[in-house]
């Protein structure tokens, strides 16, 4: 059973084909990493999975439902959660407010006008729990702009987890983190393995090889290889196009 199935996906920007007949299948509860050199088309692919970019052709299926034409919020409510490569937080709100909004999104309509949301324990308790999971418990009441860069990255992940997703899309979650911080995130992700489907886009190869069940290699808008860490390491195409080119 596949959590995410992408078939024949094509996205062109003028003369540039950013996604070129891409096929990808991620099994349920798998941690699937996508790696590729800069300019391979990772951002465009993420945009299409989340719904921010509409493909020219092809289909995207989540849990056997065709979501190709769905909006960003619709996909989110269907169980997709994503973290942003460049942090996207509500500046002016506290860390806890940011996580509470993620929880609120999962508790039905927000057309509730009277009760004070900041005093609502159904929002605040799970928000604190999610912050504690990423090690931000003592920063809950800080405004976003008072957090360090690494803390903002952790908050991104706390928000993503608070959405209780079935399919998690992590866009370079470790980018800009210190070694210690990324170690914490690796531990957190491995504890999540088997409970949700995770698509991980990451440049930190140590983390990728340690965590991923399978990897796909994206080059020039196509997946050129998919397999376990061992299979990818020895794949001649990959060595040639990606690792070889890097060395």
């Amino acid at each position, binding site marked *: 059973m596949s959590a995410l199935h992408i078939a024949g996906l094509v996205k062109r920007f003028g003369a540039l084909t950013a996604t070129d007949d891409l096929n990808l299948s991620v099994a349920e509860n798998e941690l699937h990493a996508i790696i590729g050199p800069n300019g391979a088309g990772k951002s465009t692919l993420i945009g299409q999975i989340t719904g921010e970019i509409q493909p020219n052709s092809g289909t995207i299926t989540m849990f056997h439902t065709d979501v190709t034409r769905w909006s960003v919020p619709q996909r989110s409510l269907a169980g997709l959660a*994503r973290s*942003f490569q460049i942090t996207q937080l509500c500046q002016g709100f506290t860390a806890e407010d940011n996580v509470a909004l993620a929880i609120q999104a999962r508790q039905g309509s927000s057309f509730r006008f*009277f009760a004070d949301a900041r005093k609502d324990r159904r929002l605040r308790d799970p928000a604190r729990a999610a912050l504690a999971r990423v090690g931000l418990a003592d920063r809950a009441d800080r405004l976003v702009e008072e957090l360090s860069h690494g803390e903002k990255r952790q908050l991104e992940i706390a928000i993503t987890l608070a959405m209780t997703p079935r399919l998690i899309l992590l866009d370079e979650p470790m980018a800009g983190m210190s070694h210690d911080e990324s170690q914490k995130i690796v531990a957190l992700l491995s504890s999540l393995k088997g409970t949700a489907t995770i698509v991980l886009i990451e440049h930190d190869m140590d983390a990728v090889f340690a965590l991923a069940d399978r990897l796909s290699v994206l080059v020039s808008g196509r997946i050129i290889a998919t397999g376990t860490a061992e299979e990818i390491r020895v794949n001649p195409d990959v060595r040639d196009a990606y690792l070889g080119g890097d060395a």
Partner: protein
Amino acid sequence: MQRGERISQILVALATIALVALPVVAATFGSTYAVTLATRLLIYGMVAVSLDLIIGYGGLISFGHAAYFGLGGYTVAILAFQLAEGVPIFGYDGTNEALVAWPLAMLVSGLAALVFGALSLRTSGAYFIMITLAFAQMVYYVFVALKYYGGDDGLAMARRNTLGGARIVDPQIFYYICLGLLAAVIFLVGRFTRSRFGMVLTGARMNERRMAALGFSVMRYRLVAFVIAGMIAGLGGALWANLARFVSPDMMAWTKSGEFMVMVILGGLGSLFGPVLGAAAFILVESTLSELTEYWQVLFGPVVVLIALFAPRGLWGWLTVRRRGA
């Protein structure tokens, strides 16, 4: 934060006492002008609070808020006019009863806000500003063209609405009605902004992309806020029509929208009480300058420029936040 909140509470308490006592004090000096002026302040304050909901909290820069103010006023005046003329409108005889006319004014303004909001909110940024302005101008020209209702010259109301059958002739009583309604509006808008709805509205201003990724269709929340603000402005217009016993297209002129915007920013964006303070300051400056010279705009224009350039947080922010570090 704590300290700022304490100062806010003290300011609100002082303002409440002053506003409640004002007619009594004015009466001892035998001045009805002060009561009329203060009633204007309450009504402008109400409209400014509603505009702050969408600009300050929602980040939606509407430059057409006067349209909803004017529509509310015209609804009340037209209902009274049709009743007096004995000509039914859409099969309805018209009314002079506030309990019917004022909610209808809110309904009409709310419906207009629903239609214009749904169209305008498809866009953002500069487009949104210009489109809200254009729609307001459209409503303005409709009423200029409606000669039956006086066109350019406006439409007079022979007398004030009755409230539950009782007449409201006494300016003091009308003042207290306006004060009560303003308090209700502030209370409700305050609840809205702190509720789940308010968190989504505010969050969408701060980071729309994040809110969409969380699963919020932000446009729907924005539209609801836009309609609520339009309805409150409509109520303000209904009160204004009763205060002046006259409505005219000037109520929805684009300069009026600009003035409401000045009040909000002068008072303080997203500060709930600030816009009332802004309205008070606006009326004070306007009435002082216009006594100085017929061409008071020559003085007022530069004041507005200076506010825009140098006072982004407004009076409320200046009063409550600045002392935090002291």
